[in-house]
């Protein structure tokens, strides 16, 4: 198998094995392949050809899994779009990579609005046709004969996942059939995924963590339990679902695991089916991780590390709760992956020294959609001994190697932060704020790992509620500041850059 288009082929997986469910209903692999094949045929009939981008704008569900594999099977490129994001934001992404066909469960009103702002011409999903794009209802999809997989080359694009860019323009991370399949294979091997595994899909499709379940799940023939978004807001419901569905593998950001620890009534649940708990995307406070591990003694834990551009590149397995006073290492490279830690001049540093982490691997993206300059800037070639013309992906993460060979994450080389596991570039938040009426200058800082706070110098009188309302239309919800504080001037460094250290101190003084 060379591409993700063949993941559901019947000669690979037991067709009668459970494939995907949402806690209420589930389908087996024969049904998943059948439904993906029919949707694939409908997409081709709607004009989708190899390499075309197809938007997936669905609530997390059995259908979203069907849609991903239908698009891959058609040799096309799936573009997950945040169903909860503002229409203007979604429209911007659709224009960026030219989405003309989408699978969506949005309202006819929102779809009409999207089609006026984007090339969107055909939507699979809603039963009622409205003004705007041509609609192919699911009932019509069922009338198609399942289409066979369209052949692809290893370096053909397979999916585009958007992340925020420092100028405010999001960057579409392009993964190919080769990089996606390499990731799925390494993930399945590293965590020993088996057909009897039951993986919880926690992350939405537009968050790269989801490829663990969506791609590696079918590769291993495991069952994927899609946890619906409403359930995720109730930790006690989530743990009840894990128990009832006998989930064996969980992967999420630490934030959601901390919710389970605080409000998931773990003492009233039997979660002994869990054999792996994976976390990544942000730092897990070691004391709280130890507390969680004591509550879930049957599970092995693993710290997953890797920017979305490389899928994953290191792992650190924990069999015992970690010491509370040291950060949990991001660990060491998994197979087919090379790492090097370099200084400001791209010279490798010695063990124990801080430097930027560079990665080369079969799992690395091909580039950013339509942004050759950003792609160029993301990769480096090294001089000296390590020089063989190879491209290294520069993570922008600062790390150091411990004497035992494990890497420890020390911080970001730029101003990207994580808010509840989502990547946010503070400059993007600031530039969005500076475009608003009444805002003269703005600085954004992250408070803990859960919220952004913005300092604003007003131009006249400031209506903080109006500023927040405008930002909600421009930014994904996790990037909207939780609080706006008006200040007479912003702390700046000698080079007139925002002094984030002093900005943070200013906020601490005020609280």
């Amino acid at each position, binding site marked *: 198998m060379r591409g993700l288009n063949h993941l559901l082929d019947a000669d690979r997986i037991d067709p009668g094995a459970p494939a995907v469910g949402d806690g209420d209903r589930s389908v087996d692999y024969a049904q998943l392949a059948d439904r993906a094949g029919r949707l694939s045929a409908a997409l081709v009939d709607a004009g989708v050809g190899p390499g075309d981008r197809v938007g997936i704008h669905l*609530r997390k569900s059995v259908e979203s899994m069907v849609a991903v594999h239908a698009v891959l099977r058609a040799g096309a490129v799936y573009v997950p779009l945040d169903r*909860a994001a503002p229409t203007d934001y979604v429209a911007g992404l659709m224009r960026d990579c030219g989405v003309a066909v989408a699978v969506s469960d949005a309202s006819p009103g929102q779809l009409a609005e999207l089609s006026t702002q984007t090339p969107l011409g055909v939507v699979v999903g809603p039963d009622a046709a409205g003004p705007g794009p041509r609609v192919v209802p699911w009932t019509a999809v069922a009338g198609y004969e399942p289409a066979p997989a369209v052949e692809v080359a290893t370096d053909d694009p397979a999916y585009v996942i958007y992340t925020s860019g420092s100028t405010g323009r999001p960057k579409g991370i392009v993964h190919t059939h080769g990089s996606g399949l390499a990731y799925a294979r390494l993930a399945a091997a590293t965590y020993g995924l088996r057909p009897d595994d039951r993986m919880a899909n926690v992350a939405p499709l537009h968050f790269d963590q989801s490829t663990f379940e969506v791609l590696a799940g079918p590769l291993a023939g495991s069952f994927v339990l899609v946890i619906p*978004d*409403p*359930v*995720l*807001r*109730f*930790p*006690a*419901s989530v743990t*009840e679902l894990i128990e009832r569905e006998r989930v064996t593998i969980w992967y999420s950001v630490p934030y959601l695991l901390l*919710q389970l620890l605080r*409000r998931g*009534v773990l003492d*009233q649940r039997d979660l002994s089916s869990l054999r792996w708990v994976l976390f990544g995307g942000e730092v897990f406070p070691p004391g709280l991780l130890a507390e969680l591990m004591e509550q879930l003694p049957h599970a092995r834990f693993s710290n997953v590390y890797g920017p979305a551009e490389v899928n994953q590149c290191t792992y650190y397995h924990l069999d015992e709760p970690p010491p509370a006073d040291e950060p949990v290492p991001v660990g060491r490279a998994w197979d087919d992956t090379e790492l090097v830690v370099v200084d400001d001049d791209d010279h490798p540093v010695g063990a124990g020294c801080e430097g930027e982490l560079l990665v080369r691997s079969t799992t690395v993206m091909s580039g950013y959609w339509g942004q050759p300059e950003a792609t160029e800037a993301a990769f480096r070639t090294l001089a000296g001994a390590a020089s063989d013309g190879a491209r290294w992906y520069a993570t922008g993460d600062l790390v150091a190697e411990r004497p035992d060979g494990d890497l420890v994450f020390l911080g970001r080389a730029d101003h990207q932060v994580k808010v509840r596991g989502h990547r946010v570039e503070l400059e993007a938040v600031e530039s969005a704020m500076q475009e608003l009426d009444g805002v003269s200058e703005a600085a954004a800082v992250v408070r803990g790992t859960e919220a952004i706070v913005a300092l604003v110098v007003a131009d006249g009188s400031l209506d903080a509620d109006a500023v927040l309302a405008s930002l909600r239309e421009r930014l994904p*919800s996790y990037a909207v500041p939780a609080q706006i504080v008006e200040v007479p001037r912003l702390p700046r460094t000698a080079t007139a850059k925002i002094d984030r250290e002093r900005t943070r101190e200013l906020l601490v003084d005020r609280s």
Partner: protein
Amino acid sequence: MSVEADLLSFIETELAPSEPLDRDTDLLLTGLVDSLGVMRIVEWIERSQGIEVHPADVILENFRTVGAMADYVGRRRVSSG
């Protein structure tokens, strides 16, 4: 006022829904209530209704709609009174 009417007015004031809601509106599917919203509603119920909401009761079934929340409050009152 009934618990239901109080809850509706609390949610309308505090969470500012873009569309009118009634006792059967699915608050979660619309994205109106996120996890912080759930916690605020729980705090409001505890404060205004004088009952303790057990963590194990903070589940989807009890909070999907205003009607479900009012039914839950009613059950808790009976069991504690």
